[in-house]
């Protein structure tokens, strides 16, 4: 099983400059087109400051989870446990916060829970050699079961506002959670593009044998990517608990597929063929704007879901077809 993101490459092909821009920034162009269309159709509801701020705030936690997903993806493996880790972290955060543990400690524990989950994945995938798809799916199932145990099958409610404060603050009219997401985005960008770690994680995904023989400790980077992903999912979980104030026993898994959709959309843009941070951010926004506009248009839930599925399938297919045509003409 491979998570090869190779779709197109950043080389100018026969399509000329316009084709090249469309290829590299297709997701952005699509995002801009959606914003223009919805603004024209829904000037009263869509193109308003509050709506824009709401989209950004609502997508802050999904962005963090999508960035979590691109670490193992770039290293060549799927981590299907991220949604469950988010849920487990949120439920744990509420539980220990209700015991009176200070907020800072709750945050640290939640992140560590995520890192530990990543370490378990790494243990089975890297040391034992279990297929990552299976190992992470198994962990997701275990965590889902533990969630039911901890919550005793009922909705968990945050009693005191210790960790609630975490997301209550506002910065110039914007919810503070947007700032958290921005910090995560910038750090992830720095790690991926400006450090040897990002390079080696990618090399592990794109050519593991060659990377290992070149002296890259590929097992280390693979383990690291699982642990970073788990830690980010843990952080997303505590933010989720803080923002929502409640956690249902089944919280988590529903966030997994949108995160992957955004990651794969992201791999078609900005740095086509590479899972990359800004591409992933735009991927999340594209899906969010699409579903927001459609909802405001009065579309039912199923329309939004169909849109999300088609957007992913369309964007990835187009970039593969364009890439193939270009490659065959070289």
């Amino acid at each position, binding site marked *: 099983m491979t998570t090869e993101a190779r779709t197109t490459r950043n080389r100018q092909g026969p399509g000329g400059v316009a084709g090249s821009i469309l290829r590299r920034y297709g997701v952005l162009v699509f995002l801009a087109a959606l914003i223009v269309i919805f603004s024209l159709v829904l000037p009263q509801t869509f193109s308003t400051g509050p709506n824009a701020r709401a989209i950004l705030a609502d997508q802050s936690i999904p962005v963090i989870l999508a960035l979590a997903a691109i670490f193992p993806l770039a290293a060549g493996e799927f981590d299907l446990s991220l949604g469950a880790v988010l849920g487990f972290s949120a439920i744990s955060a509420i539980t220990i916060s209700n015991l009176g543990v200070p907020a800072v400690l709750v945050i640290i524990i939640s992140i560590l829970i995520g890192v530990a989950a990543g370490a378990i994945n790494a243990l089975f995938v890297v040391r034992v050699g279990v297929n990552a798809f299976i190992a992470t799916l198994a962990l997701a199932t275990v965590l889902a079961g533990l969630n039911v145990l901890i919550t005793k099958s009922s909705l968990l409610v945050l009693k005191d506002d210790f960790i609630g404060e975490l997301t209550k603050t506002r910065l110039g009219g914007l919810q503070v959670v947007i700032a958290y997401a921005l910090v995560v985005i910038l750090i992830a960008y720095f790690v991926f593009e400006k450090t*040897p770690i990002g390079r*080696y994680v990618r090399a592990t995904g794109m050519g593991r044998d060659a990377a290992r023989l070149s*002296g890259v400790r590929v097992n280390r980077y693979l383990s690291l990517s699982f642990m970073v992903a788990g830690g980010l999912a843990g952080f997303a979980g505590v933010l989720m608990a803080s923002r929502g104030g409640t956690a249902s026993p089944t919280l988590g898994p529903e966030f997994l597929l949108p995160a992957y959709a955004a990651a794969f959309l992201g791999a078609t843009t900005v740095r086509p063929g590479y899972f990359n941070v800004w591409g992933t951010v735009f991927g999340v926004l594209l899906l969010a704007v699409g579903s927001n506009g459609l909802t405001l248009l009065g579309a039912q839930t199923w329309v939004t879901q169909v849109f999300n599925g088609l957007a992913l399938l369309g964007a990835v297919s187009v970039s593969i077809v364009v890439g193939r045509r270009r490659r065959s003409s070289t």
Partner: protein
Amino acid sequence: MSSQEVRTTDAVAVRHLSVTFAGQRALNDVSFGVRRGSITALLGMNGSGKSTLIKVLAGIYRPDDGSEVDIAGEPAPLPLTPRTAHAGGLRFLHQDVGLVGDLTVSDNFAFSDTFRLGKLGAIDRRRQEDHVQESLERFDLGVSPRALIRDLTPTQRTMIGVARAFQHDEATGEAAFARNVLVLDEPTASLPAEEVDSVLATVEELRRQGGTIIYVSHRTDEVKRLADQLVILRDGKLVADEPATDLTVDEIVTRVIGHRIERNTRTARVTAAGQTVVAARGLTGNRLRSVDIEIREGEILGIAGLVGCGRSELVRILAGEQRRASGSIELGGRDFDPKSPSDAIADGVVCVPQDRRRDGVVLPMNVRENLTLGRMRGLTRGIYLSAKREQQRTAGLISSFTIKPPNPAQIVGLLSGGNQQKVVVARAASQKNRVVLLDEPTQGVDALAKSEIADIIRGLAAGGAAVLVASSDSDELVGLCDRVVVLDRGHVAIEVSGNGLTEERLAALCAQSSQIPPVDPANKERQ
């Protein structure tokens, strides 16, 4: 000799067969016939056109216009396809044998013919197994049709492959021996020495029962024992089509290699008796058996031998990619036991692996990213990777190793093979190394890049590194190396150096001919 009359009894005959790739003649007007019920050996060096010929028969390559192929006396429509080749009774057994390991012998038989079916199209297990059992018994193989392929030894698998090629056809009920032609491509190359005999006996048994075989091999001794007819190719042309009894081993070797007068010009480098850098004692792995090797500072040591001799394994063990089963390695007088390639690299032992596209470069990444892979020391400030320093180093490597095009942002997968290889070598040489290991450094590389890479390798040795070159190309070894160790099925067969190191002699030694061509009496050999 190419205008030989094609006999009517030929199972397969090719006439005026030419194959051209991008203006290059891989096969040039080759004509010969394969007599039914005989073993025809096909010989030739790498690049002689041997495998091109087989791939035409297998329906993989398209021959040029004017070529003709007869199967069972009938002109076959060209180009052949895998389907028409199979329908014509042509069967191919490659080195990897092509059996599905997790399935049974019986299932694997069915893939090359069809399952014996019962009512409702279900597999009639009894009938299928009886059919397979019958085929197995003809070769006296004590293997159950229900045995899983993965539980068998490599030798048994080879023999299952042979038996499968001669099963009786379900549709026509035709006896396969009278019809099928089996092309065996180096069947013994990766088998342990003591088991080769049983494979050869199977092939002889096949002929006794009337089977027709085309036997591709590098081993003159095997060919001499088995073959009725020898067909030798060199540089795409037919150079011999004669009964095996008419040629001596020496004559065979001479025809295969050709009288290349242009002896490789080797600048007789004075091997400044540098210190021993690597000393391996009793090195044993999967193939290697108690191998002793020493490499000195500034020296280029060649490792020769046929496929399966353990060349690559030696490189892998020294490079930290494979753990040795036993034996010891000293590096600069200290014990050396790398657990991974990065351990070896940390100790100054770098490797240029054989499979460039899989193990050498990360194809979707660009030249810059590949050149600094695993070599980021000196490019970082803390955790931060300095783009400027990386650009500088990359630009320097691209110009000194003449990587073309000289574009650091070029995706490596789109470079030519020679330039990909230069990237791998440049990366290996980008930091000070004590030992440089190269496995088939110029395989699949054009002539110009080949000589450039050879120069780079000489430069590495001149810079004081201990260099090991494992290669199947005698020409390359003679041109580069100070000494060459010939491996044979995991053992060190002989070491040659000085004037004893000639291409003919090396090729002959590798082919394991019983009579090693005599060394010029004026030359001394160091053992």
